[in-house]
């Protein structure tokens, strides 16, 4: 049991239970899961695509995938994490479709003033993204987060970020080189 499952109030079924009920065709379970997860999923996907229609379609498809695939879902993982993976893939599918029609629906990664994470109101949990990644230029970070952290392919990353595949590859190798140097300098 992880922290999220534990936190849910007593009396409310946890995600795994609800997924089990969905597998039996219980639509109320889908409704509850939607109310629990649609907000953050929409917010996170919106952060990756400026077009709200594209995001909404991806959210809908992710929940439908959960509904239809509930029987195959294994309760070992966390539902939220699974939903995120599916949602992100569906978003990429939708962006790809838009791009075929010549519409660009990607945010441009812009240079930014670094935020000092010490000034954040909450301590950040240890994530798969190490703080050393923050030393890279934003566009390199974006590629690294998409590939190394989210586990997207080069093609998927290219679609999500709205840049050519070649650019994804060159940025990846540049980022790796910089990280390697940073790590070896840190060891000395």
């Amino acid at each position: 049991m992880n922290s999220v499952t534990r936190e849910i109030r007593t009396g409310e079924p946890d995600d795994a239970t609800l997924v089990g009920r969905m597998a039996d065709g219980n639509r109320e379970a889908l409704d509850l899961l939607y109310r629990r997860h649609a907000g953050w999923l929409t917010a996170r996907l919106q952060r990756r695509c400026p077009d709200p229609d594209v995001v909404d379609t991806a959210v809908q498809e992710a929940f439908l995938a959960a509904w239809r695939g509930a029987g195959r879902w294994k309760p070992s993982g966390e539902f939220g994490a699974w939903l995120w993976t599916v949602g992100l893939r569906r978003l990429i599918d939708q962006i790809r479709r838009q791009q075929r029609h010549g519409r660009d629906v990607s945010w441009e990664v812009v240079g930014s003033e670094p935020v000092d994470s010490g000034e954040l109101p909450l301590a950040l949990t240890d994530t798969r993204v190490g703080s050393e990644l923050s030393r890279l230029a934003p566009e390199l970070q974006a590629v690294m987060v998409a590939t190394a952290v989210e586990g997207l392919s080069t093609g998927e990353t290219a679609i999500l970020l709205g840049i050519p595949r070649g650019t994804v590859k060159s940025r990846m190798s540049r980022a790796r080189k910089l990280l390697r140097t940073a790590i070896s300098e840190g060891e000395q």
Partner: protein
Amino acid sequence: MTSEHDAGGTDPDVTGPPEIGRPETELVRIWRSANVDPALEYRIEETLVSTVSGREALGRSVSAERLEVNRLIVMGLAAAPRRGRLERLLVRLGVSDSVARLATATPALRAAWLLATALALLFALATASNSTASGLDRVIVYLTIAPLVPLAGVALAFGTAVDPVHETTVATPIDRSRLLLIRTMTILVTSIAILVVGGALMGGPAVAAVAWLLPALAVTSGAIALSPRLGPQRAAATVGAVWILVVLLVGSVSGHSAAVFAPAGQAFWLVLAGVAAILVDRQRRHSRYFEA
């Protein structure tokens, strides 16, 4: 505590630091600002989604109306049966969504019907290869069974008990008879494809692969013509029984078991199919469910 509307349980009472200016909400504000680099953005997201309060804070950045509209869409789509491969193909070919759904949701297209058809064809194949007769007589079992395949399909295509999209059917602004025709066409196309392939395997004369076509049209349209009166299942059962009787009777009287498939017989089936089609068309005109 900042507001009362959270009494319903959006505030976590288990974890998180004390509610000083809602740290999660503040974190979401920073996350939404443009000057967060991708790595930090991801770390903030992971931090937020790891707690219920963080998830809720993230969710509050999306309008409630938007989430509600999407919820209704998701619930509506979940209530509908899923779109199958054939349905997707039809939509891609330019058939409208609702027609594609209704045509392919035809219960008869389901595995049971296909399985029954396959078994019947295997049986026909077995009898054909053991038969000592020649010509069409050799494949008489196949010829007799073939028209029953679309007939059974049509029987299953309508009716509340066997129809997974019955509610959709009733709620769709297509009149029922047109729907019946859409489904019948789907069934006929599928049946003909299967039966022609099956017929080629039978090893009878080439004409055997198509000799059942007119009888099939005749019995199927006959069953449709009778279904307003008898109901689709009973109409199909009646017509099917009559068909088998006619084949057996004519066969034994003439001495050729495949006599009903001879040219004279074919002409008769053509006329019968035509009459049934006229009847169906007349019923269609008189029974528009959704006409003002």
